[in-house]
């Protein structure tokens, strides 16, 4: 009960910061101010809000859950590769998009694509694909909020009520505060999570009787020792994961955030400290997730381990439905919460729970990004702004925020969470496959709108095909993958316990490669944009 009260207090603080604390002086509201905070964020807020925007419920709760089941490999798979690829993409792509946005007034990626490739409806196709891939994040954010409040209150706050509270709080500060409110809330949340992540590590470590004992004990238990190494993961799978962080810069909410910096210099600190911030959050989460396997005094964790053991020993003889049910039981997304409940004092569990809520509520920037995209790429592009004015455009954005939040909440109440977790996996691959659009637009004069269309259609088709394939072919029991299609002795397509493999790689690898090849070949066969457009985007190469 006390932790839940602390979390509610935290939500009240967030609401205050988002709505009132950093409101701009009164005056005529401009779209650029509401959606991009007038491109005026300072270095501290820019670093922490950009980082916080990327740290979703999936990243925090999912990382410890993944580590609970898969071991220390989680950090190398998801965190350290992101610590290299994401700041590199911000350095090369984020800075250029910021400069173009400043120069030409772009507020969304699609606006830039339309201008760069002299297209209209192709931009709409890109908008639709981006929007469809973004919606599951918003839904899972609300689900995460409901689950967290439910767990932290010991069931006192029902899931539907917790989800409603989180949806209302997020919707309110995005509605009233726009980008400025969202950025300051994200900054506050990131600082909170960075602080309490370290505290959680120490408190749980002490509660478990020290990590040295736990580590030694794990290594001496044959069933758990592999979790301390990477022997259960193939090197090709590990390599494949380095393609996933390409998705970060292609996410509209990240790219739109890049437009909010006051000066380009503000990217410097972000680029340098990004790998350290990722390490500071992920290392404790991953380590605690792994060490949770040694905990013997939490019945829920023992039940998960038992489900994992049954799946490994009897999974092959079970029906796919029974296997899925056991997978759900063995999943460790609530591991951190369980550890906190067991080992942290009530008041601290509340503060740490608030830190976790901070990560869960990262859906705010996605809601705002969708609203910005809708009002700029659809409403304004198809004449709404010209006919009704900028004031109506902002109100349309606000109405969109309410509608998308209500829709996400309604879906969150009805649909099983696993569906959206899967959707997010597809979305990561999908956005990674869309990243060649940005590279081509910014670095290759020869790219064309038809190349962009081919890349976008391929991405959508590949995401749907992967989803249909994984739905039609049930995941096998833990162990070797099931071969679906081979050619000349090569294992082309296999179904693995965790997904799909193409030539041993995760689908994201062929998706990105084919996407880039389509951009190159189709662009070479089609007409380039006018010289005046090329001069606009590549001034130094045309002097």
């Amino acid at each position, binding site marked *: 009960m006390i932790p839940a009260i602390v979390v509610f207090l935290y939500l009240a603080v967030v609401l205050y910061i988002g709505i009132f604390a950093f409101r701009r002086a009164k005056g005529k509201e401009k779209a650029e101010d509401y959606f991009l905070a007038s491109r005026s964020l300072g270095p501290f807020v820019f670093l922490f809000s950009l980082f916080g925007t990327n740290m979703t419920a999936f990243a925090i709760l999912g990382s410890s859950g993944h580590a609970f089941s898969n071991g220390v490999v989680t950090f190398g798979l998801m965190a350290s590769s992101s610590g*290299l690829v994401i700041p590199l993409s911000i350095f090369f792509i984020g800075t250029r998009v910021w*400069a173009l946005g400043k120069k030409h007034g772009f507020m969304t990626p699609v606006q830039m694509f339309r201008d760069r490739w002299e297209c209209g409806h192709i931009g709409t196709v890109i908008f639709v694909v981006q929007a469809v891939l973004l919606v599951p994040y918003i839904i899972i954010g609300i689900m995460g909020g409901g689950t967290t409040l439910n767990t932290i209150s010991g069931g006192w706050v029902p899931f539907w009520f917790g989800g409603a509270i989180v949806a209302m709080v997020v919707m309110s500060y995005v509605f009233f505060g726009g980008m400025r409110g969202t950025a300051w809330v994200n900054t506050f949340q990131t600082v909170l999570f960075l602080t309490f992540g370290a505290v959680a590590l120490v408190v749980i470590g002490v509660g478990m009787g020290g990590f040295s004992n736990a580590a030694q004990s794990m*290594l001496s238990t044959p069933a758990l020792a592999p979790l301390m*190494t990477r022997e259960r993961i193939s090197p090709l799978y590990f390599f494949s994961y380095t393609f996933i962080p390409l998705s970060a810069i292609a996410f509209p909410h990240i790219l739109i955030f890049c437009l909010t910096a006051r000066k380009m210099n503000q990217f410097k600190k972000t680029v340098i400290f990004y790998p350290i911030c990722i*390490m500071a959050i992920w290392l404790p989460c991953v380590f605690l997730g792994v060490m949770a396997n040694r905990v013997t005094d939490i019945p829920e964790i023992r039940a998960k381990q038992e489900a994992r053991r049954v799946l490994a020993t009897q999974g092959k003889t079970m029906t796919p439905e029974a296997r899925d049910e056991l997978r759900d039981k063995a999943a460790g997304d609530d591991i951190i919460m369980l550890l906190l409940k067991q080992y942290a004092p009530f008041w601290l569990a509340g503060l740490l729970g608030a830190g976790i809520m901070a990560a869960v509520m990262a859906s705010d920037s996605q809601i705002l990004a969708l609203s910005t995209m809708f009002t700029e790429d659809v409403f304004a592009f198809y004449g709404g702004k010209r006919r009704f004015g900028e004031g109506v455009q902002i109100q349309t954005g606000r109405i969109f925020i309410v509608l998308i939040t209500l829709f996400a909440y309604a879906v969150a109440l009805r649909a099983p969470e696993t569906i959206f977790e899967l959707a997010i996996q597809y979305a990561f691959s999908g956005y990674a496959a869309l990243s060649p659009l940005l590279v081509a637009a910014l670095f290759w004069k020869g790219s064309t709108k038809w190349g962009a269309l081919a890349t976008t259609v391929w991405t959508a088709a590949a995401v749907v095909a992967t989803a249909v394939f994984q739905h039609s072919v049930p995941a096998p029991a833990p162990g070797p993958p099931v071969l679906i299609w081979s050619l000349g002795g090569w294992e082309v397509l296999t179904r693995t316990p965790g997904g799909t493999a193409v030539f041993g790689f995760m689908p994201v690898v062929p998706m990105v490669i084919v996407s880039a090849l389509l951009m190159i070949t189709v662009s070479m066969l089609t007409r380039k944009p006018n010289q005046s457009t090329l001069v606009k985007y590549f001034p130094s190469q045309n002097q």
Partner: protein
Amino acid sequence: MKRILLVIAVITLYVLHQDFWNWRTAYPLVFGFVPIGLFYQGCFSVAAALLMWLLVTFAWPGHLEREIGPTETEEEAPK
């Protein structure tokens, strides 16, 4: 020359992410509890931050800002 060295540094770090030599062992346990593979990947994150510092210091695309002209907006960030 500076650019080539930075490109080589980026590629080298990307390759070093695949530390296959730590694949099947947890030993030595750093600080008595951190498996070597996890410690290596933590150090990799620090190396990535250093690489970013090198890029920012020696390859900063300052021309992009100069092409825009003065970049101060009408208002300062909230204090």
